[in-house]
C-alpha cells in the first residue's frame, strides 16, 4: 500500500491480547491519518460518556500518510482519547522518531483498551508484538525508563513512548514522553497510560514505506523543502526556535506575566532568545525535519533540549522567574517526571497568586525560586500536601480556595502563552478548542485587526479547519507556509490518485465537527465555550493593551459569529445540513 503501512495494532490489556486489523480504507479519504483517523477510530470504540480513566476507555495512537518519508516535518503522530483532565475528547501530538518507527514496523496506528493487572510495557519488534512485565520500572522517570525499556526489550535502536511517576499517579496533566525531551503534553495522556497500567511502548521497525512514484515524490519533497520550508517564513525555527517568541510576544503586549496579570515582562532578558542562544550547544530535529527548531542547552550543569517558548513564559514570566537555569531545571524535571510544563507552570503561578492575595501560602512567591523546583517533584510524586493540591491543576485548585477570579483555564485546560485581552482571536480560539485553552488549534498571534471580532472569528474557523488536516497528515506547525495545494500535490504523487485541495479542506472541517459532536454527546454545551472571568472583567496591566478586557458581550458576539460561520445553531450544535455536507449525518442525530 502506498504511503500507509495498511495495518492497525489492537491491544487489549485486560485480555492480554494482541491482534492486527487491516486499515479501514473507507475512512482514509475522509480522515487521512493522525488526528482525523485516530478520532474516527476513537469515536467508533467508545461511547461519549466513558470515564476517561476506566478500563472501558480506549486510546488511539496514529501516524499520518507522510510519516516515514522525506516530506519535510512529517514525523508527528498523535494520541486521541477522552481527557481525564477536561472530560473532552482531545488530540495530543509529538514529533521525534516513534511515529516513523511504528510505520516501519508495519502499523499505521495502535488502539489500546482495557487495563493490565500489573504494570506492563508493550514491545513491538516488527511483527513480534507482546506485553511484558514492567513492575521493576514503577516510579522511574522517563529518562531512565527509556533506557531500561531498550535494555529489557533487547532493542537498542527501539523508540519509546513512556510515562513517569506523574502518569502512574494519574495526575490530570501528566504527559507521555518520547526521546527524552518531547511530549504528548496537554490533556493528560500520561494519566490514561497510568490508568491502564501501561508504563510504556517500545518499537523497532525494520520494514519500509512505499510510494507510487518514488522519483517524482523525492523530487517534490526536495523542491518543497528548498522553496517552501527553508525560506524566510519558516527559518526563525532554525535560527532561534521558539524562544524567539519571548521578545516578539512581549513586544505585542500579550506575554502572560504574573499569573496573566501583565501583558509584558520587563525582566525577561534572562529567559529570552539571546539567553537561550548563549547556552546553546547544538540544534536538534525530529525525523525528516530540515529546520531543527530544538535547541540543546547547557547552563550551570543543567543539560536539556529546550526550554521552548511556552515553558519560558508559563513557568518563567508567568511566575516572574527570570533565570534561565531555573526555568530549564523546572522544565527538565517536568520532562523526566512526566508533567506538562504548560499546565504545571500555570498551576505554580496560581499558587503564587493565592499567596500574593493572602488566601493560602504554599511557600511559593512570584519572582522567587525558593521551592520552585522542589514543588515539581512534590506534584509528580504526590509526596506532600501542597504537591497533592497543585497536582489538581488550576481549575480544581482555584475551586478549593474559592478563587474563581484568579483562574486561567477553559474547560479545565490552562491557557497557552498568549494573552487574550490583547488578541481576541486567541481568546476565541481558546474558548472553542475541543480540548480547552490550547494555541495549537487556531493561532491568531500574527494576524491583523486583532480586535476585529468578525475578522478574528473568520480567521479562527479557517485556521482550525486547516490545522485539522495539517495535523492529520502529520505535519508540524512550523512548516508555516504549507497549503492545501501542497498537501494535495504530495498525496496525489505518493498515492497515484487525484487528491484535490478542496476535499482536504472539507476533511479538515469534518474532523473539527466530529470532535464537536463527541463533546456535545459528552455533555458539553455553549456554556463551556467561555472565557475565564479574569479575561472578561479584570483589565490587563502593563504593555500596549493595558486597561483592556475581552468584554463578555464582545466575546458572545464573536462566539455567535463563529457558530454562524461553522453552520452551527445558536447553541453551537452543528445543523443537520452541515453534517450531511460533511458526511457525518449518520453519526449524529438530534
Amino acid at each position, binding site marked *: 500500500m502506498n504511503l500507509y503501512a495498511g495495518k492497525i495494532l489492537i491491544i487489549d490489556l485486560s485480555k492480554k491480547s494482541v491482534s492486527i486489523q487491516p486499515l479501514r480504507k473507507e475512512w482514509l479519504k475522509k480522515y487521512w491519518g493522525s488526528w482525523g483517523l485516530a478520532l474516527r477510530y476513537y469515536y467508533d470504540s467508545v461511547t461519549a460518556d466513558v470515564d476517561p480513566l476506566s478500563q472501558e476507555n480506549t486510546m488511539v495512537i496514529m501516524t499520518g500518510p507522510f510519516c*516515514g*518519508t*522525506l516530506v519535510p516535518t512529517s514525523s508527528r503522530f498523535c494520541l486521541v482519547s477522552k481527557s481525564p483532565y477536561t472530560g473532552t475528547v482531545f488530540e495530543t501530538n509529538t514529533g*521525534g*522518531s516513534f511515529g*516513523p518507527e511504528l510505520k*516501519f514496523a508495519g502499523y499505521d496506528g495502535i488502539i489500546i483498551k482495557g487495563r493490565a493487572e500489573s504494570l506492563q510495557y508493550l514491545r513491538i519488534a516488527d511483527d513480534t508484538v507482546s506485553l511484558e512485565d514492567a513492575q521493576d520500572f514503577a516510579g522511574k522517570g522517563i*529518562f531512565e525508563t*527509556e*533506557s531500561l525499556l531498550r535494555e529489557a526489550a533487547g532493542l*537498542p*535502536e527501539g523508540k519509546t513512548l513512556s510515562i513517569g511517576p506523574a502518569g502512574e499517579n494519574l495526575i490530570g496533566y501528566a504527559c507521555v514522553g518520547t*526521546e*527524552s*525531551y518531547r511530549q504528548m503534553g496537554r490533556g493528560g495522556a500520561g494519566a490514561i497510560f497510568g490508568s491502564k497500567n501501561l508504563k510504556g511502548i517500545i518499537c523497532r*521497525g*525494520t*520494514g*519500509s*514505506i*512505499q*510510494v507510487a512514484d*518514488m522519483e517524482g515524490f*523525492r523530487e517534490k519533497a*526536495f523542491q518543497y523543502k528548498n522553496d517552501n520550508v*527553508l525560506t524566510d517564513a519558516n527559518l526563525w525555527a532554525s535560527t532561534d526556535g521558539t524562544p524567539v517568541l519571548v521578545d516578539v510576544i512581549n513586544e505585542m503586549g500579550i506575554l502572560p506575566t504574573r499569573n496573566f496579570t501583565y501583558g509584558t515582562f520587563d525582566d525577561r532578558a534572562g529567559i529570552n532568545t539571546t539567553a537561550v542562544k548563549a547556552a546553546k*550547544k*547544538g*540544534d*536538534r*530535529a*525530529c*525525523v*525528516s*525535519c*530540515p529546520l*531543527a527548531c*530544538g535547541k*540543546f542547552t547547557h547552563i550551570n550543569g543543567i*543539560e*536539556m*533540549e529546550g526550554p521552548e517558548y511556552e515553558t519560558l513564559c508559563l513557568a518563567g514570566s508567568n511566575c516572574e522567574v527570570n533565570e534561565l537555569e531555573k526555568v530549564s531545571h523546572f522544565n527538565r524535571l517536568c520532562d523526566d517526571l512526566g508533567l506538562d510544563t504548560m499546565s504545571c507552570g500555570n498551576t505554580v503561578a496560581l499558587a503564587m497568586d493565592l499567596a500574593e492575595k493572602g488566601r493560602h501560602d504554599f511557600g511559593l512567591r512570584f519572582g522567587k525560586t525558593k521551592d520552585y523546583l522542589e514543588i515539581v517533584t512534590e506534584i509528580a510524586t504526590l509526596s506532600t500536601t501542597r504537591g497533592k493540591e497543585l497536582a489538581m491543576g488550576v481549575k480544581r485548585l482555584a475551586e478549593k480556595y474559592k478563587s474563581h477570579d484568579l483562574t486561567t483555564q477553559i474547560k479545565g485546560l490552562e491557557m497557552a502563552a498568549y494573552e487574550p485581552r490583547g488578541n481576541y482571536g486567541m481568546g476565541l480560539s481558546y474558548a472553542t478548542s475541543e480540548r480547552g485553552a490550547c494555541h495549537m488549534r487556531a493561532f491568531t498571534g500574527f494576524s491583523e485587526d486583532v480586535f476585529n471580532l468578525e475578522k478574528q472569528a473568520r480567521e479562527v474557523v479557517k485556521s482550525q479547519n486547516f490545522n485539522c488536516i495539517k495535523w492529520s497528515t502529520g505535519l508540524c506547525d512550523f512548516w508555516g507556509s504549507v497549503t492545501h495545494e501542497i498537501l494535495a500535490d504530495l498525496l496525489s504523487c505518493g498515492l497515484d490518485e487525484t487528491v484535490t485541495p478542496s476535499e482536504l479542506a472539507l476533511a479538515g472541517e469534518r474532523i473539527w465537527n466530529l470532535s464537536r459532536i463527541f463533546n456535545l454527546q459528552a455533555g458539553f454545551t455553549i456554556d463551556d465555550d467561555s472565557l475565564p472571568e479574569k479575561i472578561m472583567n479584570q483589565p490587563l496591566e502593563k504593555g500596549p493593551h493595558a486597561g483592556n478586557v475581552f468584554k463578555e458581550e464582545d466575546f458572545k458576539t464573536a462566539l455567535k459569529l463563529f457558530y454562524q460561520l461553522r453552520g452551527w445553531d445558536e447553541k453551537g450544535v452543528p445543523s443537520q445540513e452541515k453534517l450531511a455536507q460533511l458526511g457525518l449525518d449518520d453519526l449524529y442525530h438530534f
Partner: protein
Amino acid sequence: MEKILYAIPDLCTGCNRCVYACSAIKEGKFYPSRSRIHISNFSLNGYSVPNICFQCPKPDCLTACPCKAISQQENGIVQVDTEKCDGCGECVAACPYGAIDQDDKGLAYKCDYCGGDPNCVTECTPGAIVYQAEDKELRRLRGLQMKQRLTSKKAEDKRIQVGRQIMRLARD
C-alpha cells in the same frame, strides 16, 4: 580519492533525511534499516552521530571476504559484487564500524558514494555530511572516528557503540 565523504557529528541534528534519501535511492522505498548511512541518536545527550563507510585504505571487509566479492576501485571506493557474494556474512563481522550489512537474502551491501554524487550530502541541511577534497581538519576528525573500532557479529550493535564512543570523544 578526489573527494571523501566526511561526517561532522557536532553539526548533526538527528533528522535522518540522509538515511531516508539513501534508502529511497538504493531500495526504491523509504527503508531506513537498509540505508547505507545510519544515524545513532542519543536524545538525552542531545547528540547524533552519522555512521558512514570510511572506504578504508585497507578494508577489513575486503580481507575477510572468502569469495572475492569485495573489491577496491582505483578511486578507493570499496564495492560489493553481489554476483559473487555467497551470503556468508564474514564482511559484516569484520567491519569494525558496522558499515556493511546483509539483506534478506544474505547479500552484502554498503555505501558506494552513489557514483560520485551522494544524495545523503544533498539532503543534509546542517552540513554534518560533506563530500569534498581532503582537508586537514576533516582528516583529523575522520582519523579519530576511524580509531573507534569494535568487534561484534551485528552491524547495528557496532554502529551504536561506535557512535557512543564518538560522542564521548566530542564531549571530553
